[in-house]
């Protein structure tokens, strides 16, 4: 049985000790739907550059290069997806090589980013895109 006590100055604090059984009965309270937490890709299909999952990628010294490459890839209609973005990825890599302390460790550790990229593109439902996404991921890792 759950029970309750009043504590504190002027008994202002109510303390309920609830049993597990008691709490297994579904709550009568329903809360409003939580606000959607936008991921890397916004509901309208755009890239969310504010996504915390990007870490310093989009804001660092190669941020512009990264954005160009990733945008190209995301909106690519080429077959396979992203095959028309080679030059942009190359530019990004060249930039990243100038900052080994920034882009080496960070990315290999950052499974979040790779996951996010992967997830974002697998939601397109294209088989190829998954492969390329992981290729992108490797690319960024190498650099």
């Amino acid at each position: 049985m759950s029970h309750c006590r009043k504590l504190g100055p002027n008994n202002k604090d109510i303390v309920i000790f609830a049993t597990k059984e008691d709490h297994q009965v579904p709550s009568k309270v329903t809360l409003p739907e939580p606000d959607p937490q936008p991921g890397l890709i916004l509901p309208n299909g755009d890239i969310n550059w504010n996504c915390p999952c990007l870490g310093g990628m989009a804001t660092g010294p190669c941020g512009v290069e990264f954005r160009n490459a990733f945008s190209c890839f995301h909106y690519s209609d080429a077959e396979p997806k992203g095959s028309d973005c080679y030059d942009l990825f190359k530019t990004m890599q060249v930039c990243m090589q100038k900052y080994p302390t920034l882009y080496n460790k960070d990315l290999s550790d950052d499974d979040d980013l790779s996951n996010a990229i992967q997830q974002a593109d697998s939601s397109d439902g294209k088989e190829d895109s998954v492969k390329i996404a992981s290729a992108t991921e490797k690319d960024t890792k190498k650099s």
Partner: protein
Amino acid sequence: MLRICKAHHLTRLLNAPVFRNKFQKIVNDGCFSSLGCKITFINRNYCSSKKGDGEKVNDESIKSHPTSKPCETDSSQDPVKLKRCKPVSLDPCKPPPPGFPSKIPSIKQCTTPNLMSEIPEPSCPWDEENRNRRAKYRRLFLLGLLFTAITLGTVWYLGIFDYHEEKEKPKKIIKKKQKRAIIKDPADSKDIPPDVPYLLIGGGTASFAAFRAIKSSDPTAKVLVVTNESFFPYMRPPLSKEMWFNEDPEAVKKLIFKQWNGSERSLFYEPDDFYTKCQELMDNPNGGVAIARGWQVTEIDVVERKAILEDGYTIHYDKCLVATGATPRLSPIFEVAVSDEKIAEKIKLFRNIYDFEECMEAYDQSRTIAIVGGGFLGSELACAMARRDKKKSKIIYQLFREGGNMGKILPEYLSYWTTEKVKAEGVSVMPKTEVVGVKDDGKGLELTLSNGKKLNVDFVLVAVGVEPNTELAEKSDLEVDPELGGFLVNTELQARSDLYIAGDAACFYDVRLGRRRVEHHDHAVVTGRLAGENMTGGRKPYLHQSMFWSDLGPDVGFEAIGVVDSSLPTVAVFAKATDKDNPKAVVTQEQEGLRSNMEEIPQECDKYVSEEKRAELEEARKHISEPNKTEGEDFGKGVIFYLRNDIVVGIVLWNVFNRMSVARQVLKDQRKYEDLNEVAKLFNIHEDNVVAE
């Protein structure tokens, strides 16, 4: 899988271990207290002037120290009797003598130039004698002055002073070095760009979150951060937690700590290479973030959009953020004590990397340490210091005014419970104790406590709160909240056109919870980001509530959101340990007995309760506040709702993790709930904590 980008990542990136269980008061002697001035001479002569028709009072002196018997006449001071003068006792305790102005003494009289000016001009032979003597003395004085001037001139000519100056300079430098001087980079303000699109004042977490948001929405933005610290932006929370758990001294030197998941990371948000040099910022077509370190902005010309540095150098901006943070304060007794240099060395404050390094050094060389303050910082540091002392060779005292740790945050019973846990960590906790005296005892400090006891410690760490850095306000014509402190801003964190405030220094309008000022890491992240977004045209209000967390040893870890103030009524739901048959009747009777001892005092009568009675009541409450184990009571895991007008305004998730989104929804709902136990069900308090999603 939108989950990936949830707050989890943000907090991890910003390194919140969320997901690891994650004051001379002049004592008026009562006689002239309403005058605002004090009588030095109890017997006062007041004479009728030659032309005057009445008697005049000369009364002006201010006594700085009250005498123990202020209303007694002082016989030692015989009144000097002049012609037509009569002594009148100005005993303030007696009714005024006849003829004495009835309104006496007024404030004006208090400010009469002085007693001498009112004395009638004496025309006696001694006057002439006196004049002669004076002339003689004047001549002597002038001769002396001339002699001194010649001597000094000779000395100067010989160049002895030059030598003196040289000798003093290096001394000062050595001292500064020892105190970890602030390094300016760039060393010359000329290297700081004079005109920038985005200027961020302050280089802490709020500033970091702001430039990240700015660069996200304006990819080629040129952002200049001006910080008075020697470091690139870094996170402060680990300084009182993880940094102390690191046993590798090399890692500590490099400011690396272990995260909740075991991986190591730097205190710095971004590696040094992330930032563009100040000299190169304006030439880079892709923009960047440059940090001017060791520089202080002293004034903002909001109309002209100019920030002025300490050396007068001006920086023009298009958009500016003030995120100057806060500075730890000393309690009055320590404020007086630090005027003595020897004592000041042993009194430490805690806020930044230098403070951490100094404290760590002092810690290593000390055997007894006193931490003053029972809030977040004080409690966390006490636990961390006790935990670091594996050999148990040190004594860590923690003293504070409240009844238990986190007494301003947690409801009383939980605060008591927490104190027991802090004690279990090896801290000698002294609640309801204040320091009333500080003395140098040769080796360390001798603290006199409010309970009359003396405590000898090697050093004292004062953690009694912070003061928002709003020095800029007055010169810059910015408004500061008189009660909460901090620059006043609207819900979009805007103080004036193109001027935003974020972090500890912002007193903002929360659309749901009213005007607030919050001093927490996540708040700096949330408001910094919001300001950054609004600086780039976001026009967003403060809607996303920030959270905060703390960990005190293995049994206490909590996350909280909203207005969490122990003076509010609370409803808590804790997970009952077991639901076995128990001697409930007996226990309840026993408790009923205790409760009847402490007849409740209605809140209206609160101010009429004597101190003794209050202490007695508290003691009784402390007794019944303990969880009754036999009845399955346990404060191990639960959720605490803080209510204002029956609406939930704050939630503490006590050893319950990963439920912050639910808590946010409850706050957002702003509803009166009939049964908060039903709401508590949504938090799954009986479930084991999921370490990570």
